[in-house]
């Protein structure tokens, strides 16, 4: 649905209009832009830092930085890639600031980060697809948990490629790395993910 909105010319023109108004400091445009990107940006940050409180703070800092830099934003550039690169740089700065801290989080935050929750509460006994949905959820949860075991740079390329559906060039722009590095990171991330899944489910091959 997000992709459909991005491909929709009216939605695109609406975004351009909002960016123009944002440059003039229009508070309604800010609300529109935050609303438009909040799910994707928060998801990206959460996948990257894994800690909900840190993702929340980085989300706010990203919009503060956007407001500071929007005057220098080149409208010919892809706004989404620019927005995510702002968030990426802030996350890197935050990481540098607390390099001594452990990157492991509590089970609670991992569950939140993977979007885990009480799926059982949403399943009804008379729902014919309930079992299939439960299996889907479990598979998804296992995959999400395995992603949490990967290094941040690998989690980042996976979420940008598969969840944000970004092109490799856009990922390179967000992470500030060459295209060849994007490819090698993607390859290593997928290999790492598969190894983590194999460890979790010995003998089973598929995701």
């Amino acid at each position, binding site marked *: 649905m997000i992709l459909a909105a991005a491909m929709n010319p009216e939605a695109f023109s609406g975004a351009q209009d909002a960016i123009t108004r944002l440059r003039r*400091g229009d*508070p309604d445009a*800010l*609300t529109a832009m*935050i*609303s438009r990107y*909040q*799910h994707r940006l*928060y*998801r990206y940050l*959460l996948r990257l830092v894994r800690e*909900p409180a840190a993702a*929340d703070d980085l*989300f*706010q800092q990203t*919009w*503060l930085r956007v*407001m500071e830099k929007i005057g220098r934003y080149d409208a010919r550039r892809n706004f989404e890639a620019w927005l995510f690169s702002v968030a990426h740089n802030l996350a890197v700065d935050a990481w540098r600031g607390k390099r001594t801290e452990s990157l492991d989080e509590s089970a609670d935050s991992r569950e*939140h*980060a*993977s*979007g*885990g*929750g009480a799926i059982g509460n949403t399943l009804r006994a008379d729902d014919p697809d309930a079992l299939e949905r439960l299996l*889907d*959820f479990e*598979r*998804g*949860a296992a*995959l*999400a948990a395995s*992603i949490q075991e990967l290094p941040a740079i690998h989690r980042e390329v*996976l979420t940008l*490629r*598969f*969840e944000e*559906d970004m092109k*490799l060039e856009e990922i390179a722009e967000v992470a500030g790395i060459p295209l060849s590095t*994007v*490819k090698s990171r*993607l*390859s290593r991330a*997928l*290999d790492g*993910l*598969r190894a983590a*899944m194999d460890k979790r489910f010995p003998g089973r*091959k*598929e*995701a």
Partner: protein
Amino acid sequence: MSEHESMAGLLALAAAGALDAQQQRLLEKHARECPACRRELEIWSQYAQGLRRLPQPSVPSQLMERTRARVVQESVAAADRRWEAFTLGALALFAWTVGLTFWLVARIVTGGELVVMGANLVRFGTWSAGSTVLVWLTAAVAALALGRRRRELRRAL
């Protein structure tokens, strides 16, 4: 490295849609003839599908409102800082202009000589030293007043 080995190294990237057209063509050709790579390709495509359908995190409550409030608060603070810098600059310029004007007037009125306690007050060096002291005093008082206003605003926000 055999063709099979080199193609096997591309399977994960193929699932990520990260191969160029030529690599993709070569891999597809190889997979048609290699059951092991075909099976691997299928597994990787399941991974890709799973990655596109991961459980989604929910956005924390009021995140948009909190972000908007923080941006507005920061914009107000930034506007205040700009206004304060402008005010201080304008005050300094005003003080220098007044000092220079008075110096010119004083020179005309006194004929270029106004000696007090052995110092000629309308000499440029003496006058500019006095003006500088006055400008800095004015700036210090203004900075104190503006700092107080900023603290009051911060408390109000």
